[in-house]
């Protein structure tokens, strides 16, 4: 079962962070967080960027965990698949959530 989790967790974490940031975006816009500021940025933008950075950090952590002897699989095949999928999830987090720094927040 733990090998099934190793294969399924990385992209599931991407999906969870992607959905959470989309939800945060909806909340920020409906609660009008664009009118408040945090560290010189509109609060909505600051919260979304912080969430994006946290998602990337989490994915990086998963890449290292899947490669480690402590958390990685003893099966070479599962280890290879889980590391590959962790990298795919990292790229997915970078690419699909990149709009938090590239587009208008609530227009």
């Amino acid at each position: 079962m733990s090998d099934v989790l190793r294969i399924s967790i990385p992209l599931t974490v991407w999906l969870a962070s992607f959905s959470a940031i989309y939800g945060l975006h909806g909340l920020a816009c409906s609660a009008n967080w664009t009118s408040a500021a945090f560290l010189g940025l509109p609060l909505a933008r600051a919260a979304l960027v912080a969430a994006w950075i946290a998602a990337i950090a989490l994915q990086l952590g998963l890449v290292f965990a899947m490669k480690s002897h402590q958390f990685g699989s003893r099966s070479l095949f599962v280890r290879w698949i889980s590391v590959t999928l962790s990298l795919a999830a990292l790229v997915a987090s970078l690419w699909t959530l990149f709009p938090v720094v590239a587009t208008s927040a609530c227009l």
Partner: protein
Amino acid sequence: MNALQRHRALTRIWSSEQGWRGWFTTVNHSDVGRMFLFAAAFFFAVGGVLAMLIRAQLATPRSAFMGPDVYNQVFTMHGTIMMFLFAIPLFEGLTVYMLPKLLGTRDLAFPRLTAYGFWCYVFGGAMLIFALLAGIAPDSGWFMYPPLSSTLGSPGINSDFWLIGITFVEISAIAAAVEITVTVLRYRAPGMSLDKMPIYAWYALVVAVMILTGFPPLILGSILLELERAFGMPFFQAAEGGDSLLWQHLFWLFGHPEVYIIFLPAAGVVSTILPVMARTTLLGYGWVVAAAVSLGVLSFGLWVHHMFTTGIPHMGLAFFSAASTLVAVPTGVQIFAWIGTLWKGSPQLRLPMLWILAFFATFVIGGLTGVMVAVVPFDWQVHDTHFVVAHLHYVLVGGFVFPMLAALYYWLPHVTGRKRFFKLGETAFWLIAIGFHVTFLAVHWVGLLGMRRRIHTYDEGQGWEVINLISSIGGFVTAVGFALVFVDIAVNAAVAIRGSRDPWKAGTLEWAMPTPPPAYNFASLPEVQNRDPLYHDPALPVRIARGEGYLGTPRGDRRETLTVSITSGRPDYLVVFPGNTALPIMMAFVTGGIFLGMLVKAYWLVPLSLVGVGALMMRWVWTLGRRDDVGPQDIGRGVALHSAAEAADPPGWWGSLFLLLADATFFGSLLFGYAFLWTVAPNWPPSSYLEPDVLGLGLVLAGAILAPLGIRLAERQVERHAAPYPGLALAAVGGMALALAACLVPLGRPAPDFHAYDATLWVIAGYALFHAALAAGMTLFLAARAWAGFVSARRCGEVRTVRLWVDYAAVTTLIGLAASYLPGALT
């Protein structure tokens, strides 16, 4: 025992009953798989006739062939049948039939569940066909957007048939998904580690998990819309705090993964057949597995790209546009792996290969137009035009139907045991391939010229007439091609000459048995050491028939097979399957009473049927397990294993785990809907929120502590050879406290048709009540099982299975009631 005696003994044990009764009592996966395939082919033919009616209508401007009312029913039913009654069931049928054979085992994990799923599919599909014949079929489009599908836009019974019939059919999909997941993970030939699994099994596993997590949002949406239509609970009515966009979110949370649920099995078929046709092995097996898993998960992040024109902020659009383009990468990895496989092999242009080439050409075009509509400004231009109709047909026909035709011709010799003789299939191929492209290239074109989808007619002078006529001619050519396929199959199955066992010289295990396959699949279970066992050991079929594998000596009337550990494929437990029974069809029939009662508004039938289902479920479970500890039993080759009844994680535990995954997705979707309405829907807040009260909070906290504590106490008592009743009593009391807490939620609130908030409270409370009552009921049933001797220190798997359900009820009731009290606590 020689091979013939073994064959006769196993056939007697595993066969369905003789005569007509066998159709209704069989639980054998080959029988049920064939029945699924025949039913799916029937529904495909019905959907195809509807497609021809559409093309006849659109062939000329101002056509009087159909009026708008009939046309609406025809295009709605065409999409509905093709998606829900053809595509998914065809995957189920193919997988039910083929998976155990590919994995080197004798049946699927839960044979009676396979049959139950099939009968739910047939009964649910029959409801929709009845509606079609009676002229009261759904008419709001296959994605049923409210308010078109609510009582405002569709006051008759039409939409009810869709919501209730499709939900009934979806039981079948969920049942099959649980079945497939557990089978792939646990029911494989000994030695078949994860890296030695046939590639189709990986795809089936990914698709099954996608069904478990993709279908629940639609089931929830259908329930909410039916509650709105039947009882006025305004989930989608803006005036009362609902929002029609909630339906779109729930529908496409299902709908986009659905596209990949349809495509991935076809990709699995291509990855299986293509290397055989190219006389080589699949290039980049690990990359293909990684691509399939990636595609499966990424597809859940695309749903909003169906909603680009609904006024979502730019950043939201950009998220989903980026995710939509990203899926092209794993798709590309698979396509390059297939091209590489062709490159390293020596391709032979036989009929399955022709269909794969047609798939390549068509699906790549469909994929590219998919990337086009993933780009927001382009999508704004072509949204709701025939361009989108053409795109989805390229993806679904090119990406699913063509590979499935390859599968049909590839595995036909396996099903019939005959060598295809007449060459109608090649003629059919060219008719379909050419006809399809003529039809849908034209549909792309007319879409770019602005023709909207779902219009029953159009005026002259818009430049659409000739294109539509060409498209309709292409459509009828395609239909003639499909008719020829049916004729070809019937003729070859009936009169072609006997064929050889492995006509394609393939390496996978389904070709290691006689054809047509015997009811037991393998006379003995092979020890697998390679991904393509027959390439490395051509004598394997003979050794299997001689009983040199595992379980080569039949024991009494027992249908025996093995489970293995997930990663290594090491033999784990001996499983004894139930025999033929009418229980699945009876239970599907009684389940139908729940849906029929809702449909015809005979609400008295709903609780009555629920009680009937509960009684039959108890009968179902009661026949499982053992009343004594047997200990290790010989399985051949010098190995002895415990029976699954003595496992800490019996098959029922695994089935429950994955069923609860689907249940948790349903619950998560419900919380998402609640949060969506709370933050986005107009006309919020409601006039008042639910106030937290001490009694409710006390009950839910007490229940959430007592129920899990009690079941753990019972488990510990069983492990120490003591009676589990005190622990079970505590768990049952905890479950009742949770149920009571759920009942208190709507008390004192306005009626559920007052505001979407109150309607949501009723649904959350109902969900919690159902699960708490279920957990309490299962606990009491377990006490009866323990009393009858089914539970012991060695046979404690049932307690662990019930523990899953009790824990789940406690956690979801706690979360659900916390969410109900939250707005009141915050204000």
